[in-house]
């Protein structure tokens, strides 16, 4: 088998992976970036609204206010040291991005344009702030392309269209690299590294209706699970309130930031009833639940009363054309309406994973070695995770809009910087562990088996999984529904063994890739279902009618799901920030 060696390996070429790669390549390290799609096809490209940083370009702002909003938005499950770190780092990170070429929209004085987004305030819960730095409604595209461009300059080595199959680890738990598959030829390749960063993005494809791309299948998280690493807070999955009804494509919160609002079948601006202050810019979990409640109570729109409407026409054509051009285009293409004239039909869509691979605030992967506080976050040397696949945890139980691009960029950058030091102190590759390579190869070769008897197809099983997750781990979750979900999922997972490929060619076999992705979806689906069924409270995105209140006494703690035996354990929230006072839990009102 072909084997190559690099100082650092980055799995994933989204915003997180590429911002890390840039630091490393500029420091003259040999860095390999592996991506299953050409880098600019990564889903960061789809981010619309923008990235948060307290630049204060439009009105007064402070990182400390940003920190408060993020802690509150997290429903007090976020780690306050990591949150402080992120909100402070946001400012230099955005300036660095601008210097790297991102074509941010501008204010009259030439500074970066910032728009209001949900959950943002001045003065710790006061008036609405405007903190989201935007390049029209194509911010992710602008950022991802600029980062790719800078990586070309820095001569980063890209493995484009290589699919990472599994991490290679030795008996002591060190990660030695990855086994990957070159999609064009179907040949495996072993990439050895001194340090590895997992930056594989989210897994929205585990749900039927999602804003996530076809490639968002949680591969990195599943690889971590299989390497014995737990996943943290997987029960917290964000449903974005405004997906195009019936389709799932996203309509950015920036639409409401620019003045759009939601109405029900009676034409009522119903968010006034659910969040009297913030109204349509309340936090996402709040707005999604409000929409589902309106529909459940019979005030949905359309012949089937199954969606609500997002009104934009009052903003006028000029604002829409200037600030929301892509939204207009998407509405025309996918909903068949021009938002300048008609409201957009919307319904919550599976959007973002708050949980993921547990890390500290330097993006180093941590896992518990014991029950004591300082044993709960033992660092795995040389292994990093950043971006949507990681859980630092800055989003806790609910992420604020504009904080994910921030998260991926900040922690990608920090991971890069930390890896530079790590490689300096650990200049040698560790010896390869053949048993681990064999296990990864076995997983790959299993798909060579020819069909026999009642073989199932990848597509059938994926559809079943997605429907199951939607029904049993959706916006509202009760004990019975979730317990049933776990049992059904365990049964469905058994059927994986019956799935076979009809087409087993080597060259650009997308069926084989989708089979490997399906296994990953099962792994993370299970993590979500098990963690959700066990949390007996409502917090952030995890909303239980049977336990409608947050329970700080018993549940202000992170969950950790281990794949072996579908086991859960818990660890404390880090409530002590770095330099300021802790924000104690309060009731969350918008």
């Amino acid at each position, binding site marked *: 088998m072909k084997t190559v060696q690099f100082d650092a390996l980055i799995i994933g070429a989204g915003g997180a992976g590429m911002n890390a790669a840039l630091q490393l390549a500029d420091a003259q390290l040999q860095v390999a970036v592996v991506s299953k799609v050409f880098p600019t*096809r990564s889903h960061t*490209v789809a981010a619309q609204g923008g990235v948060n940083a307290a630049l204060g370009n439009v009105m007064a702002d402070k990182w400390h206010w940003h920190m408060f909003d993020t802690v509150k938005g997290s429903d007090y499950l976020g780690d306050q040291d990591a949150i402080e770190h992120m909100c402070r780092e946001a400012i230099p990170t955005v*300036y660095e991005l601008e*210097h790297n070429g991102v*074509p941010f929209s501008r204010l009259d004085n030439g500074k970066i344009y910032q728009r209001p987004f949900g959950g943002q305030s001045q003065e710790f819960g006061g008036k609405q702030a405007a903190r989201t730095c935007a390049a029209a409604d194509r911010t992710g595209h602008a950022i991802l392309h600029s980062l790719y461009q800078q990586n070309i300059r820095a001569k980063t080595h890209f493995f484009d269209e290589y699919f990472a199959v599994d991490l290679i680890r030795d008996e002591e738990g060190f990660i030695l690299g990855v086994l990957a598959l070159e999609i064009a030829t179907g040949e495996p390749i072993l990439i050895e590294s001194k340090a590895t960063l997992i930056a594989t993005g989210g897994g929205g494809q585990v749900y039927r209706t999602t804003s996530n*791309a*076809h490639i968002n299948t949680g591969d990195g998280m599943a690889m971590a699970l299989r390497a014995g690493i737990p996943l943290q807070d997987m029960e917290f999955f964000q449903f974005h309130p405004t997906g195009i009804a019936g389709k799932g494509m996203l309509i950015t919160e920036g639409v409401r930031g620019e003045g759009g609002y939601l109405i029900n079948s009676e034409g009522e601006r119903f968010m006034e009833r659910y969040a009297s202050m913030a109204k349509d810019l309340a936090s996402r979990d709040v707005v999604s639940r409000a929409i589902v409640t309106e529909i459940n109570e019979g005030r949905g729109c359309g012949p089937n009363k199954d969606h609500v409407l997002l009104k934009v026409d009052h903003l006028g054509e000029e604002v829409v054309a200037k600030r929301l051009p892509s939204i207009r285009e998407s509405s025309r293409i996918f909903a068949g309406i021009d938002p300048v004239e008609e409201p957009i039909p919307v319904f919550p869509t599976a959007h973002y994973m708050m949980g993921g691979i547990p890390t500290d605030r330097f993006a180093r992967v941590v896992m518990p070695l014991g029950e004591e506080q300082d044993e709960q976050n033992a660092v795995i040397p040389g292994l990093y995770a950043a971006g949507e696949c990681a859980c630092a945890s800055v989003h806790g139980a609910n992420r604020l809009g504009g904080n994910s691009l921030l998260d991926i960029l900040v922690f990608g950058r920090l991971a890069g910087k930390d890896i530079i030091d790590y490689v300096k102190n650990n200049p040698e590759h560790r010896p390869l562990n053949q048993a681990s390579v064999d296990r990864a190869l076995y997983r790959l070769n299993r798909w060579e088996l020819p069909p026999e008897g009642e073989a199932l197809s990848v*597509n059938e099983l994926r559809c079943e999984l997605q429907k199951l997750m939607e029904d049993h781990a959706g916006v509202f979750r009760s004990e019975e529904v979730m317990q049933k979900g776990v049992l059904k999922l365990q049964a469905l997972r058994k059927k994986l063994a019956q799935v076979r490929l009809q087409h087993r060619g080597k*060259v650009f076999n*997308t069926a084989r890739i989708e089979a490997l992705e399906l296994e990953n979806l099962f792994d993370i689906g299970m993590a979500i279902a098990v963690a959700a069924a066990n949390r007996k409270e409502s917090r952030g995105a995890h909303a239980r009618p049977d336990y409608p209140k947050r329970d700080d006494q018993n549940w202000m703690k992170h969950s950790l799901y281990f794949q072996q035996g579908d086991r859960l354990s818990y660890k404390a929230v880090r409530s002590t920030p770095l330099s300021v006072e802790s924000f104690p839990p309060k009731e969350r009102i918008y």
Partner: protein
Amino acid sequence: MLFRIYRFDPETEQASSMQEFELPMQRGMMLRDALLLIQEQDESLAFRHSCGEGVCGSDGVNVNGSNTLACITRVADLKEPIEVRPLPGRPVIRDLVVDMSQFYRQYERVDPWLKPSEPLPEKEILQSPAENEKLEGLYECIMCGCCSTACPSFWWNPDKFLGPQALLTACRFLADSRDGDKQARLEYLDDAYKLFRCHTIMSCVEACPKNLNPTKAIGQIKSLMLKDQS
């Protein structure tokens, strides 16, 4: 609806063929949805796709003779039989998947990154809304390749002529008030092949699914060169 799809598998076939598929018409169906349904019938069909909303640039294909993104092409707007082929002029890897490396190499050749003048300010480099507006129509490119693979000059000289996508990108940096390397950029482009193989045939404009106008960008570069020389 009748579809005729280009098939080629280098492992088992000498030559390509067109394969027919029937699908029932569904309201609001996009071409990508149709290809996915076909894949359900025959999982060996290979094509690239990801975002499903026209932003990732993965699924450029040739449909009834025109290049476009499958995910934002409404099937109802297409004439039957719907013929789907790979983007023209590029080596086919399998079925609808082509090798785009030459296209990417040309992009890399224009130094597609901002080279701001030193020293950098501590905060953002200021740019007026009017200066920022000059980037509109240039920075939105998603590198789908629909334009360059529709350009006859690129078919004949894919290694020498940069092609509309790379030239649009070159223009994006020439148009950026923050860039400090315009002179060198123009000198590099001033070459019988790199730029001047464009004969303003406009096929690129017609092909661009994001409604960008590479021909205009090429014209802009030419006039910058003239200004530069005078």
